[in-house]
């Protein structure tokens, strides 16, 4: 089996990050998205951990897809995913322990994140190893982008900072990297954005924003198509 062409890879990446973005289009895996998006560091870390699991689980599941009996596929997939999550869990515990404590239960819960199983079921069990690995990883990256944007927005509105908690990842020296967009002395705080309602409202705005961008692109494409066609033929198509 040959490795995929660049065009194929581009199609998979575009599909994963934009067209079927798991956070704002498929709206899967809401539990970690809503809870862990209260700042950039939490959101991106969890997103990257998920991406890593999905990269390996996509490849592993695609590799054994021919031998898995159809009736037993769910428990087998879950078993593989759970084993991978345990590895990520142990790795994070040893290397970024402070962050591990903050993310807490949501690392083991990557196992039950429906995005991971959904991609295993919908993509990895039907496609080759390289394709599945790529799909899994970029689906995770798509989620990471959503978590990052949502985290940045909530952090900025809620506390007026960006990258707070970065010392959990890079050690105490990184404490000064935190960006105080609103000066720290002002004691600015808007708790709502940090609390769960902020996650729901923020995600709602992200979904609406994605839809608006899509619609604008669609309208532009239609205009371009209209301009390209002879004037007489356009009438019937303008309503679709």
């Amino acid at each position: 089996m040959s490795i995929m062409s660049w065009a194929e890879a581009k199609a998979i990446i575009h599909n994963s990050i934009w067209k079927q973005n798991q956070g704002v289009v498929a709206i899967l895996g809401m539990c970690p998205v809503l809870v862990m998006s209260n700042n950039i560091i939490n959101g991106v870390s969890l997103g990257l951990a998920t991406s890593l699991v999905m990269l390996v689980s996509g490849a592993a599941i695609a590799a054994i897809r021919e031998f898995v009996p159809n009736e037993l596929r769910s428990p087998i997939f879950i078993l593989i995913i759970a084993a991978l999550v345990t590895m990520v869990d142990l790795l994070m515990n040893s290397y970024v322990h402070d962050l591990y404590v903050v993310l807490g239960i949501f690392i083991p819960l990557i196992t039950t994140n429906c995005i991971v199983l959904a991609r295993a079921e919908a993509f990895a069990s039907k496609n080759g190893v390289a394709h599945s690995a790529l799909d899994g990883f970029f689906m995770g990256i798509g989620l990471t982008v959503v978590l990052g944007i949502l985290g940045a927005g909530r952090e900025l509105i809620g506390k007026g900072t960006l990258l707070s908690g970065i010392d959990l990842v890079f050690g105490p020296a990184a404490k000064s990297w935190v960006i105080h967009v609103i000066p720290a002395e002002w004691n600015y705080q808007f708790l709502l954005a940090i609390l769960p309602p902020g996650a729901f409202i923020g995600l709602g705005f992200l979904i609406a924003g994605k839809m608006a961008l899509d619609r604008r692109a669609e309208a532009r494409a239609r205009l371009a198509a209209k301009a390209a066609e002879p004037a007489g033929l356009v009438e019937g198509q303008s309503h679709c």
Partner: protein
Amino acid sequence: MITSPFFVKPTPLQVVMLKVAAALLPAIAVYVHVFGIGILVQLTLATLTALATEAACLKLRKYPVKPFLLDGSAIVTAWLLALSLPPLGAWWMVVLATLIAIAVAKHLYGGLGQNPFNPAMIGFAVMIVSFPAQMSRWAAPLALQSGPLDAGAQLAYIFTGRLPGGIGFDAIASATPLDTVKTVLIQHGGLGDVLQTTLFTSGGLLPSQMGWIALAYLAGGLYLLFSRIIPWQTPLSFIAGLGLMAAAMHLYDPNHYTSPLFHLFGGAAMLGAFFIITDPVSGPTTPRGRLIFGASIGVLTYLIRVFGGYPDGVAFAVIILNIAAPFIDQYTQPAVFGRKAKQNDSSKKGAKP
């Protein structure tokens, strides 16, 4: 002579809103008497913000601005919100609360008539969740302040946060009656003689001076009731729910649970009963549904006040029941006129009558 059948001409929304605003006026007058003109500043700020936000949202949504702006619904929302925030709160609080009420709770859900939640209560809930400290900074009633603030000082405090003569806000601050009772109960486990302090005795017959504001709300509410602007079921069942709960608990242990009068004339109970839970958009529409709705809010308000973390529970109770309103409506549909009450869909389609 004119005979039946008559057509009932629906009252235009503008008239409804005008009457609701008019019914709030006596309470605003008493409010000014008790707390000073700070509340008028808050009302003005809220009204201006509401109109500006409403116009901006309508413009963004490509709706005609003028008819919606003139229907008065935004102004009523703004007034209800301003009346539930602390009278000497900083100017940005009422502005932010109104902005959220109109833009998020009303227009994001589809505008007038589409909002599942009462916009004013969402604005209030956002504020009390986000700024618990600022939201509990109530000034004492003017009569209880050692040197009452004059109008200019109140105005200056709202806009600059500074008081004349270098006195701190604590000098004129006082917890609300509900807050005071809650704190005393947590600290001492019993009411003791807290109800004999001036905050409570200055109210005369009513539990505190704020009780008189509540009485004015009641008067305005009765006007709305008799001019058929609001149905009787919701306020009555709310008062019954809250009052009966309070009465039962008060009888059980008077040293721990305050009287029903205290609960009905404290906090936002009367404002809620006649002006907030009667919102025609976010409440149920069936008569039986309204009874269930009002009573549930009453009971829930009591539970939140007495056992919950916040001193007053009207806003949260209203929001919770708002989202239950479609469900209540579905199960309380009255029988269609001319049919027996117990008929359901399958028997209607049956061959035999």
